[in-house]
């Protein structure tokens, strides 16, 4: 059974149709890249998977591990192993990063009926993981993302992913706003989390990110549908030819 099956998904926001019969299958352990022009529905797909309010599903199904998750609250989906790395991570004044991580991890464990982490266990886990991502202790004490640079915010997203150990990570334009050094650190962090037990959906506009996070499969999205799928060479092809042909095809 595939980890994720999106079947004939139609989604509207404020009466505007964004996804238009989207089909997508992600196998266990697979890294799938989703590429497409602006407005093709890439971020909408990410938000609908995570369960953001305001997106109206008019038709279709999302099966996660065989289970229909459309009626589930975002926190329930997260506890089942779905993780969205935000394109624009939010700043949370007054909540220390450490507190946020512990609250999230223990809330997920509680929802799954697992024992909560003790403080020393948790501290050890965070220190080790943060070190690999060049995140210092000072950053962990600061309020979540407040005053963080673009690169720090994205590293913080990867830290959360590493702590929460999801089954499926959806990376929404993780490369946006990053210079090449920051991109390498983030990509290294993501690559360390690749495993046969974890799948990823890497959403990006540019091929550049896929030099560092090499996908198993590439899907091209246009006008709310997957219009072409292929191997990693498809990304290079797109870089050379642009999206114009797919926009015409879909139209």
């Amino acid at each position, binding site marked *: 059974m595939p980890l994720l099956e999106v079947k004939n998904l139609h989604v509207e926001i404020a009466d505007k149709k964004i996804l238009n019969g989207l089909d997508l299958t992600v196998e266990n352990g697979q890294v799938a890249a989703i590429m497409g022009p602006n407005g093709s529905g890439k971020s909408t797909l990410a938000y609908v998977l995570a369960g953001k309010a305001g997106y109206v599903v008019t038709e279709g199904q999302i099966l996660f591990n065989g289970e229909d998750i459309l009626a589930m*609250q*975002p*926190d329930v989906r997260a506890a089942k192993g779905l*993780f969205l790395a935000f394109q624009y991570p*939010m700043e949370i004044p007054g909540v220390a990063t450490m507190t946020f991580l512990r609250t999230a991890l223990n809330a997920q464990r509680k929802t799954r009926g697992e024992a909560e982490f003790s403080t020393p266990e948790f501290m050890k886990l965070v220190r080790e993981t943060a070190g690999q991502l060049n995140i210092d202790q000072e950053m962990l004490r600061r309020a979540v993302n407040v005053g963080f640079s673009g690169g720090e915010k994205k590293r913080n997203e990867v830290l959360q992913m590493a702590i929460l150990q999801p089954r499926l990570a959806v990376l929404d334009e993780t490369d946006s706003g990053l210079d090449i050094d920051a991109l390498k650190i983030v990509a290294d962090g993501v690559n360390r989390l690749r495993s046969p037990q974890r799948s990823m959906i890497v959403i990006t506009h540019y091929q550049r990110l896929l030099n560092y996070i090499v996908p198993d499969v590439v899907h091209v999205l246009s006008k709310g549908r997957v219009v072409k799928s292929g191997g990693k060479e498809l990304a290079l092809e797109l870089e050379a030819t642009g999206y114009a042909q797919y926009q015409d095809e879909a139209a």
Partner: protein
Amino acid sequence: MSVVVQTVKTPAEQALAGVFAAAKSGLPGKGAMAALREDAFRRFDAAGLPHRRVEDWKYTDLRALMADVKPLAGAPDAAAKACANHAGQMLAGIDCRRLVFVDGGFVPELSDLSPEPGLAIGTMAQALANGDALVAAHVGKVIETKDPAVALNTALMGDGSVIRIAAGAAVARPIHLIFAGIQPASSFTRSLIVVEQGAKAVLIESHESGEAQVNSALELVVGDDAQIDHLKVTSAQGLNAQGLHISTLMAALGARVKFSSFAFTPGSAVVRNQMFVRFDGEGSEAAIGGASLLNGRQHVDTTLVIDHAVGGCSSRERFKSVLDGESRGIFQGKIIVRPQAQKTDAKMMTQALLLSDSAEADNKPELEIFADDVQCGHGATTGALDQDLMFYLRARGIPAKEAEALLIQAFIGEAIEAIAHVGIRAALMNAAIAWLKARA
């Protein structure tokens, strides 16, 4: 032709006149003090209970809120004292000098009167009766105000604390004045605290009551180079308590003073917190803040006047309120900068978080600036919880109620974190968390 409009007195106003007439001969203090009371009552009686057309009381219409007047509280009995023993629990973890008042009267057996060098503690009732010089010099004179609640307090003041902290003394433990209103009665406490040059102390007031009508006032005289941190906690027993709580802080600050005051109100039926603070000497700093957590039909009005009478002082105000149910949070803040008060640095901020459609926040900041070389500013925000932030937390697996609590805690925590005293800060944060748990 001119018409003299005579407002008809409300039953509460008539009752207050009756209370004063019956009580005045028995109230402590003769001669000048009795004259002060008479004069204060005359001023109150002429104006009547303040109502919505009186600008300073616009949002807290006492004429409408005071349907009746509770009888003056008698001396507390053993049962009342036993109840009061539990008062001030929120700060139980802090080693304080407790001075306990039950229904407005001092209870020595519940209080800590152990001697400490540089610290003189007495009661207002005794000081008034004995014609105490400190009381004669300061009571009714620290801040000149026409406020009707202060006038009523001056007319009917019974007991309270009179504390003098000698020059240079650093008081070892926080002084904790605990006012417990046990009976459904009215009380008028008045306290005077004189802090001499270079002295240092932490001063806490805890007010806890159910159905009582409380009018409490504290006059604070702070000498040059002194440092005073003040905390006032106002809470009620039960969400449906019908009590009325009016309190007034009147503070005059000397030169190079460091003064802080924080008002923590985790819910009470009707609260009016008034603060009048005046800078009398240059180089002083005042940090004034507060946090209110309200639910049901609770109503908390914070009314503040900061008077920069001299230059070179800084004042910072930061108030936050969390409003659920049909509660109402009011902030009226006025900063006055007198013509000679150059180099004043004054900033005021008030923020309200609305958790329900029926809650209401009213903000009225006012700046009256008569000097030309000053930095003054104010800001006010009112809003609901940020839904994008909520989604971010929930996408990490945090359930809605917990995510809400985390964001509310962060909001209120920003105000509480400004408190210097570690123990107080922790106690208030725990109380805020307990409020959030009770809400969930």
